């Protein structure tokens, strides 16, 4: 009987985990320095947390891992967390009474059933949520935080695409759809179906034609949005609040010298989005996305609190991190060989290994079968003076040392720690 991995799951190999931890480390560092605090929510949540309108789209809900657990006699189903933001919002409602500003971040897995089993069903995310701030500054803070993390990860070409949930909703209303149809089309856009607008245009050509300036071009400046505002001011005043909000955000992005693309139809995301929606791509892959979700917390029974957030997708990011970004992430490795394998030399070997680890080196006792490609130094421990012989594996030169401090000096450390 062959042991098998569960379909649709993956192991993260040591190489992948090195990349995972690098991304996570940079993400945590940036968040902590930005005043965000870490939160971890449970893997299991009640299904009903995700079912009401305005939380998850039916497309996503149909792929949720839901089941009756040991307490399930009441028929209450639980799920493996299919989304990270909603549990954070739940926790906020549970714990924060005054509706004050709360900045949170998390590193977590989410579970979505993917039919073929070829793509992973357990996905990892690094996310940040900014709850209690509704300003454009807050929106821009999140976008720039995400961009900053990607820059620190060594990505030079990151594309930023902007859309606006308020504008999409106003647009759908123009196509003369019932509220149920609007909700369904909005869900399709959020599920990534970018051809929806084209189908709508084919269905009602006159409306499609009138709205073409809004849908077809992909603008790259606040000017584009201002042009639209001027064009539609008289006919479609209902676009104005969303357009104004969009313009404010884009103005700020411009003032900070960020480049971006405006693509209204690229609103892929969650039904709970109400304002700006942004997506970041690197190497043609979507690596991060976020948006404003002011209605979510009140919808879930909390207070009227504005909120926004984003998540970085660890699975594509691990594949994109370049080997050179990892340089310097791992300590130089020293392989320690206890020459005659007597208890005394082994004890001395462990002692100097501990000393070297404390001073920032990677130190491993030789178990006889280690691969040596990534070993920078070999340290032979003898039971007679000089106790230590250090070999530089790059130059093959040998150096003798009597004490641990001398060894450290040979390795280039200062031995003070």
């Amino acid at each position, binding site marked *: 009987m062959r042991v098998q991995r569960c379909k649709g799951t993956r192991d993260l190999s040591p190489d992948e985990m090195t990349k995972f931890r690098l991304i996570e480390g940079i993400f945590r560092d940036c968040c902590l320095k930005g005043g965000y605090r870490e939160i971890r929510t449970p893997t299991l949540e009640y299904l009903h947390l995700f079912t009401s309108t305005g939380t998850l789209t*039916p497309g996503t809900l149909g792929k949720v891992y839901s089941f009756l657990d040991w307490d399930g006699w009441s028929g*209450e189903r639980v799920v493996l967390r299919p989304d990270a933001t909603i549990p954070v919002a739940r926790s906020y409602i549970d714990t924060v009474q005054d509706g004050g500003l709360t900045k949170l971040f998390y590193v977590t897995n989410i579970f979505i059933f993917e039919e073929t089993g070829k793509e992973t069903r357990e996905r990892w995310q690094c996310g940040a949520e900014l709850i209690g701030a509704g300003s454009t500054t807050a929106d821009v803070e999140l976008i720039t935080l995400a961009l900053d993390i990607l820059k620190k990860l060594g990505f030079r070409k990151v594309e930023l695409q902007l859309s606006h949930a308020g504008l999409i909703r106003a647009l759908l209303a123009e196509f003369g759809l019932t509220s149920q149809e609007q909700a369904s089309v909005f869900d399709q856009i959020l599920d990534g179906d970018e051809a929806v607008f084209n189908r709508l245009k084919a269905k009602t050509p006159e409306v499609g034609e009138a709205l073409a300036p809004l849908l077809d071009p992909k603008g790259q400046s606040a000017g584009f949005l201002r042009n639209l505002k001027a064009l539609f001011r008289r006919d479609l005043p209902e676009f104005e609040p969303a357009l104004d909000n969009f313009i404010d955000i884009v103005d700020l992005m411009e003032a900070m010298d960020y480049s971006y693309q405006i693509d209204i139809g690229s609103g892929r995301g969650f039904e709970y989005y109400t304002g700006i929606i942004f997506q970041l791509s690197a190497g043609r892959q979507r690596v991060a996305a976020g948006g404003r979700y002011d209605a979510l917390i009140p919808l879930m029974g909390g207070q009227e609190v504005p909120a926004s957030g984003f998540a970085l997708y660890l699975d594509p990011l691990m594949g994109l991190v370049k080997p050179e970004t990892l340089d310097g992430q791992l300590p130089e490795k020293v392989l320690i060989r206890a020459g005659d394998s007597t208890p005394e030399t082994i004890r001395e070997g462990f002692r100097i290994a501990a000393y070297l680890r404390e001073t920032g080196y990677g130190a491993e006792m030789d178990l006889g079968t280690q691969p040596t490609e990534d070993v920078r130094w070999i340290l032979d421990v003898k039971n007679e003076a000089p106790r230590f012989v250090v070999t530089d594996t790059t130059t093959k030169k040998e150096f003798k040392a009597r004490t641990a401090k001398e060894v450290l000096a040979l390795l280039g450390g200062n031995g003070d720690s």
Partner: protein
Amino acid sequence: MTVKIALPKGRLLETTATLLRKAEWGLEGYNQSMRNYRLGSRRFPDLQAKVFNERDIPVQVAVGNYDLGICGLDWVEELSIKFPSSALVKLRNLGYGEGVVCLAASHHQPAPTTEELKEETELIRIASEYPNLAEYLALGLRLRRFSVFPLWGAAEAYPPESAALVLVSYPTEQEVLASGLVSVNVLLNHSAFLIANKNSWEQKDLSEIVGSIEGQLPFTAEIQSKKAATISAEKGYHPWQTDEDTVRIALPDGHQQTHTVTLLNKAGIRVEDYPSENGNRRPGTDLKGVVIKVIRPQDMPLQVANGNFDLAVTGHDWLTDHLTMFPSSPVTELLDLKSGRVKMVAVVSREVPADDIYSLRQLVAKQTTPFRVASEYVNIADKYARDNHLGMYKVVPTWGATEAFLPEDADLLIENTETGRTIARHNLKIIDTLFESTGCLIGSRNETSSLVKQERIESIVGKLRAAVEGE
């Protein structure tokens, strides 16, 4: 090349038999009174047919035990909505056995609109024989908070008190109305379908067999699907008039009725129209402050756990199955009724060289394919396989006639038996007895808020206890 087909028992049997007779398959003994579930075809000597409960057929075809199957589209959808990657191909609508699956409520109260359901913030209880479709529908309707209670049957008895909504199948929407329900949302129009296993369809030559059926279609005009007996409109149940002092009792339908009536008579409890000749599921009683529904004994523990009933007459086997799945359930056995004694046994084919579970375990350890455990008692079977370290096992849920699964479609059965004769007749043997099961009265450990109700419950339990002990 052997081709295997799974054929339906029950409501689709006669029309399917007519179709296959016209297709000149020459199936001997495919009729309502059949005793042998394995059939051969004179026209197709390589064809092996086996008869199943309709509900088992999509699973059997999907897992590859059968190349072809005939069953209602409702059961195909019930499987594939939950398991979209099931290896099933829907080949052909056979045009008979039509029905409509709809979400329904009691017609004695204003039916909620889907918009009202969406806005509802309280828990909405949905009972159904189609739990997967019910969940799919509830998610699609964007219900905020819902519970789905899977049922073995008698869904029409639940609204409005025991469940706000039921997902039911009737031959027509008119018949939904006639059973005292009103349709809120139609989910699916269905009829009998020819289905195939995806791999078989792609790799085997099934053309002659499929062609022989295809040649007979459409034939709906010739064969009128025999509609289920229409329940007359006056049978539409009136909702219970209950208050917090009312005791709600569930009595079993099916073969447990005989034992139950004897017991009730001994206890001096009069229940009118039970068993009912016309399918009445709300019999009356002379007990003050007591209302009664007749439902499936399999469904009772979950119903009592959820406070829909205060007392229920079921079997120790079904209570055990429920508590195995939900150890924290508040349901408990109040009284052993000492009737309908059966043994819960582990059964294998007589050909298997193992006479006890220990030697079976050794055989399983050498096996490279998953070990298949079939049972109506899914949770008991799962625990038994787990506790006995049966390695890489799978539990195959069944809906009756489980003996017919061995040896082709399962390796082990967990079954109840009274005399062991059915097991012997199917060339099977018992290798272990899990426990003995009798009828029992169940209730909830949760305290009732009403003293009057508590006294009424105690009085009924007392009467039944005296009746049992007087035996």
